[in-house]
Structure formats: C-alpha cells, structure tokens
C-alpha cells in the first residue's frame, strides 16, 4: 500500500527489491532504449488484442499492448515465439502523427506474455494525445488518451464511463460499442470482473454466433489459462474500441481469480498454501493484460492495485482493492459485526483515510468492487458483510467534500444516496454511490427481477434496472451528472440501440440524486 497520497511514477526502490533477472524483465517491458533484440518474427496481426492506455497523469500515461498474432493459442503466448521483440511507440497531439511529442521502445518478452507497459512522460497537461505501436513494419491501431489537468488547475469538466462484469460468453459487448462512441469521455473506470474464471460450455454460452475450443471449457487455474481467458475477452472489437478511445483505470472484484474468494481463501475449499499459487498467476495475468503501473506487478501472490490521482482541483480518485485484504466470510452474526473485521485491510484503510482527509478536491471519488450502501444483512460478500469497516469508511468519507463511490458486481444499475449513519435513518446522507450494471453478465436481463424489492425497499436507493449497460458521469465544479444507459438485448447480436434509463444531477455540496 502506498504510504503517500501520490504514487512515485516509477518506483526505483521497488525495482531494486526484486531479483536482478525480474527487475530487468520489468524495466525492459517499460523502457528499452538501450536494449537490442532479434529481428521481429514475420507473423502478421501482432496487435490482435488492441491497444490501451491507463494510469493517467498530468504529464503522461502508461501505454499498453500485448503482441499476439494467434491470440487464442492454447499455451497463452498468443502465437509468439519464445524470444524478445522490440516494440516502438510514439505519441502525437494529432491523429495523423505529424506532431510527435514522445517516442520510445519497450521490449516484449515471453515472461510477460509479450505485453509491454511503457510510461510516457513529459506531455502537456489537459491535452488530447494519440499513440500507436510498431513492430517491424506493422503498425498498431491508434489509441487516444487525455492527460489529466495540471495539479491544482481548475478543470471545467471531467467525464468518465463506468463498467463492470464482462462475462463475454453471456452476450455481446454492445454496451462497450456505445461507450466507445461517447463524445465526452476522459477516462473509463472498470470496477471488477473484467474476466470470469468459469469454464465456457454449452450451458453458459449465450453469446449467439460464438464458439470456443476445448481449452476454454474448463475453469481456469494456470497462468496459460488466465492469459488465454484475457485474450478471449479482449478479442472483442468493442472492448478494444473502448480501450483505444480513452485511458482506463481498473480495480478488480472476485472473478479475476475465483468466485467469492476472500483474501488468501478460496471459496471451493482449495488449501490456502495451494491457492496462493493460483492467486499469483491470476494477479500476474491481470497486470499483463491491463494498462497498469509497475506497482501492480505482483510479487508472488501479493500485489498493489490501489492507485490515486487528482483531476486538477476538480476531483480526487482513489481506487480500492476490496478482495485481496478482506477477512473471510463470517461464520455467524457475531463475527459479521466484530469491530476489527475489515474488507480493505488496515493499511489500505489508513491510506484511503489520508487521501480523503488531505483532499482539497471538490469531488472525492472512490472505486471498489462491491456495494457499499446497506441492502440486506445476508449479502455478506458486499460491505453488508463488514458493517464495522463500513462505519469506519463512512466516517472517513464524511471528512471529504462530495464523496462518491463507484461500484459494480451486482449486474444491475443502482443509484443510491449513502446514509451518513446506517443505524440512524434521521442522520441524512453523506454522499452518492453509483453502481453500474454488467456489460454482459446474466445476458439480456430485465428491468425488474426477484431481487428488486431487496434494493428499492430503502428510500435511499433511487434506481434499480437489471438490464445491461454502462454509466456515464460528468463532473463539473457545480454538479455531477450521472447517466445510466442500457441496451435491451445482448445475446442475439450487438445491434441493440442504447437507451437512457435514468439521469441524476448531484449538486456540489448536496449529496442527493435529483432526477434530471
């Protein structure tokens, strides 16, 4: 867990802690100015998994690609030979790449599945940039990102998309098609379940027109299987379009490893020492496939995906890990209500508390994998299973102006005003929670279902919609406008038009969801 609010852009100390060989691997995957590699293989289609950018800062971002001429090769290496390949990248302020403002090289290596994560620095803040990669003579698709506003600058607005739960096999990524077409988009926030670990069989393959080979039919456990699963999901053109459209940040939930795992514990009885091996390869595959800073590269079964960044003086984002450090599912109500029970772990609680207390931003945005507001006592996988930890986080959020929680997990659009004190209905509200529905998980869905009453029984829940979609959020100094988009179907094809099912305005200083 970082102990300071700002993360060092490239932690030399962390690199030096690693063994020599590992450090070299990582360093070259980020910056390989001085390295030499054999001529690239003659294969075509190196960029079949697209491009991405992430970890945005006022002066740059992390760029990502993973070379894979045969993205669905069973061994998870994407059809790449067991050799290093030099990848060149360039960044311009125009789509035609006439004004190149940065360029460099990174070494794609077999140990990281030929993924590269170069960090671009020295760019102008608050500026739209275009980037692309080159291997040999092959050029990648062009991606875009906008650098964050300069520290302390008063940004007029900042817009982001909110998505989660991409069960590729349950349907088409129509939501991503529409999100990628949003004109006003500075960032995409993935709040978990980017992949699913389940075997893909005829019983759950609801994406019509899709077929998968035998390698996809089993629950994934090995590194090659996790790599292959990311490749399958990332082969979707609409997901690639979203990544190419704007920088992305991501937290995970459970399915990046295994359904309902908690800290070091499996939900299916796998011994803790054994399960550490699965966590290690799952966390590694997450790093390899996302545009993340090097701090998210795991050491064995441990890593740090928390991150924080400021959007000028407008907003402070804090990305939380609500899986790796959580206590086990409670055996009974006494354990559930224990004061020392934690979902973030002590170090992360302290870190987010410092970020909130020290923030001068107008909007203080948190993102995590599971729903914060109280719904029912038996939803122990969400913050309902950690009431004492929720009280502590709510107290920390109350110290900051305009706290907002971003969440996914439940495959339903939900918008809620966060009660200041869950035990006191008269205590008012302290912030807002925006829960995005799934991109694909659970297939077509319906507006209401058997769970609706559990949620709308609370007067602080202002929206429930069980169809697929995404949320678009626009922040200005005066207000936050959250737009909940849905698509009517995803199983048959990707042609469903987008519909606005609800839009709310949250005035700065007023923690409410006002229908707009």
């Amino acid at each position, binding site marked *: 867990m970082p102990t300071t609010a700002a993360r060092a852009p490239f932690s030399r100390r962390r690199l030096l802690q690693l063994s020599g060989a590992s450090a070299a691997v990582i360093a070259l995957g980020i910056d390989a100015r001085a390295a030499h590699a054999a001529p690239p293989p003659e294969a075509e289609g190196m960029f079949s998994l697209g491009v991405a950018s992430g970890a945005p800062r006022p002066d740059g971002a992390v760029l990502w690609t993973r070379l894979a001429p045969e993205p669905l090769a069973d061994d998870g290496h994407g059809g790449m030979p067991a050799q290093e390949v030099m990848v060149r990248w360039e960044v311009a302020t125009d789509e035609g790449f006439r004004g190149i403002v940065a360029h460099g090289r990174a070494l794609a290596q077999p*140990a990281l599945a030929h993924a590269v994560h170069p960090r671009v620095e020295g760019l102008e803040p608050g500026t739209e940039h275009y980037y692309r990669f080159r291997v040999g003579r092959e050029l990648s698709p062009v991606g875009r990102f906008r650098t964050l506003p300069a520290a302390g600058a008063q940004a007029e607005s900042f817009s982001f998309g909110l998505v989660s739960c991409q069960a590729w096999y349950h349907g088409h990524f129509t939501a991503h098609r529409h999100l990628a077409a949003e004109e006003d988009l500075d960032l995409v926030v993935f709040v978990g379940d980017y992949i699913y670990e389940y075997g893909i069989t005829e019983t759950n393959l609801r994406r019509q027109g899709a077929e998968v080979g035998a390698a996809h039919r*089993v629950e994934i*456990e090995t590194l090659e299987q996790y790599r292959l699963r990311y490749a399958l999901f990332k082969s979707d053109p609409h997901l690639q379009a979203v990544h190419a459209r704007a920088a992305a940040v991501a937290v995970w939930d459970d399915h990046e490893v295994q359904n309902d795992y908690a800290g070091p514990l499996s*939900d299916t009885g796998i011994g803790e020492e054994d399960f550490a091996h699965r966590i290690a*390869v799952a966390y590694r595959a997450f790093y390899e496939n996302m545009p993340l800073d090097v701090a998210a590269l795991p050491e064995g079964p441990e890593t740090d995906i928390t991150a924080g960044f400021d959007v000028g003086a407008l907003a402070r984002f804090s990305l939380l890990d609500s899986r790796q450090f959580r206590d086990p599912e409670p055996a009974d109500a006494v354990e559930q209500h224990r004061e020392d029970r934690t979902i973030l772990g002590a170090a992360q609680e302290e870190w987010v508390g410092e970020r909130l207390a020290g923030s001068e931003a107008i909007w203080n945005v948190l993102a995590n994998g599971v729903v914060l507001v109280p719904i029912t006592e038996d939803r122990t996988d969400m913050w309902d299973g950690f009431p004492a930890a929720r009280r502590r986080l709510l107290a920390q959020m109350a110290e900051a102006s305009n706290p907002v929680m971003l969440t996914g997990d439940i495959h339903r659009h939900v918008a809620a005003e966060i009660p200041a004190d869950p035990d006191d209905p008269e205590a008012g509200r302290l912030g807002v929670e925006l829960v995005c529905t799934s991109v694909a998980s659970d297939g077509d869905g319906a507006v209401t279902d058997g769970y609706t009453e559990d949620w709308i029984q609370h007067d602080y829940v202002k929206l429930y919609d069980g169809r697929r979609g995404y949320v678009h959020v626009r922040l200005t100094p005066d207000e936050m406008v959250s737009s909940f988009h849905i698509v009517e179907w995803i199983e048959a094809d990707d042609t469903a038009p987008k519909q606005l099912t609800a839009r709310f305005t949250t005035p700065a200083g007023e923690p409410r969801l006002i229908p707009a």
Partner: protein
Amino acid sequence: MTPRPSRVVGLDAEPALATISLTWDSLGFDPLIDHYRVYAVPGESALAEPEESSLLGKTVYPRFTHAGLDPEGETWTYTVLAVTDAGERGEPSEQVVGASRPSVTATGTALATIGDFDGRTLEHHLAPASYAQIPTEHPDRVVEYVDGTDEPGTAWPYLLPGPGDAWAGGTAYRARWTLALEAVPTEDHDLALWLVDTTRLGGVLRVGANGEHIADLELPAGATRGSREGDATVPGSPLRRAFLELRVPAALLQAGQNVIELELAEGGWVAWDALGLFARE
C-alpha cells in the same frame, strides 16, 4: 534470458480409493510457475523422457489427483515438470510409482445399491440443481428409501442436507435405507458411500444399521458446487469427489428387513454419487 525452472523434487504418490494423490514441493514464485505438467504411464514402467502423449494433466498447484481409476485398483508411474511464465520447461522429476486402493464396489458382490458409481449425481431425484425443493418434500427431515420399491430418480434426493445448510432449515437430515437380506450374514459386509462433492464446511456423516451406531465418518471439505453441478467427470470440474467405504459387522445385520441409517450430524450437505452394500467374495 529467463531462467529454466528448477527440477521438481519431493514427488510422492499416496494411494486412495479409485484415486492416486500426487504431491511435490512447490517451486515458489520466482520465476513464476505457469503450471506443472504431470505425465503418467500405466504400470511400473520407466518413462525415458516424458512424451506429450502421456500428459495426464496440468496444474498450478503442487499437487494433482489422478482420479477416475478403476475401482479394482491401478498402478501408474509418474513424473512432473514445471513450466515458467516464459514457457521454459524444467527437467522432469524422478519417477514415482503409485497404486490406488481397490474399492469394495469392485471386489465385493452388490446386495443393494442406490444410483451408479459413476461420478455423477444426475440419476438422483432433483439433480443437478433443484436442492431448494428438498426441505419442502421432506418437512420431517427424513428421507425414506426402500430397496426394490423406490427408484433413485424419484425417491433419493441428490443431496443430504446438514446443520450448516440454512436453506434446508439448518438441521441434521437423516436417510433411512431399507433393504432385505436373504439370510443372516456369516461374514462382515462393506458399505460404499461415494460422494460427488461436499461443502467447504466438511462435516460428520453418522452411519448406523438397525439402530446400532457403526461409525462417525469425517467428511472432507469440498467445493460447495455439487448442489448446482452434477458431473464430476467433466474435465476441469471443480467438484471434489469423496469415496467413503466402511465395514458393517455381520452381527449388526439380520435376515429379512434391515435399515441402514445415515445422518448428516455436523457440517453441510453431501452430494451423492452412489451407495451400496457389498458382500465380501
């Protein structure tokens, strides 16, 4: 560039019913091990170099269960090697010979059975996922099954719930299996209780015959998936089979009607594969 993984050491083969459990020493996390490859050839034969045609399976864990072996018992020769994140393969381990223990389902003569010993719950009532109806159909928390009259598909629910199952009332369920023997047994018999899965809670299955206690069987922790999936033989299935077999003293049995009683006294449900009472040959 990247190091070759170390050779796997500590390979051990533990015999069990219809399975051989392999374990070895973890190679740790640096370099990151993508998976271990387990090679096997039947019998006590020497593997010169492991061939891909004898690849038994891959696992990220430093253990592997060779399941689905012939209940009569099988002998295999194993070797394991590691593959790194870069795809580098290590040297194969030393070879180890393992043998599974024979099951009474193969060595004995079946006197009465419920279901097929096949790794599936599917032939049982309400399988593979309609467990929610069990408390409704058995409000007294007792399952009655009469050999020769009842059929598994209509009278034997695929789960026997336990106190850890809130959905079933959080109480111990009992199954009473009535079967007829032609004569007073002169030799001990064997009871085979094969499970497709158990819950993460594990538990205790209390076994009795004709009102006399025989044993409290410890249930291993399972995958808690057998309530929703019914076939443990699907490649990669997370279901965790368990094979419980125990002696039934001849003195507890009688000519004519006998009742085998099974009570899930502690923990969560068991998902039945099959049950059988066997005479020794």
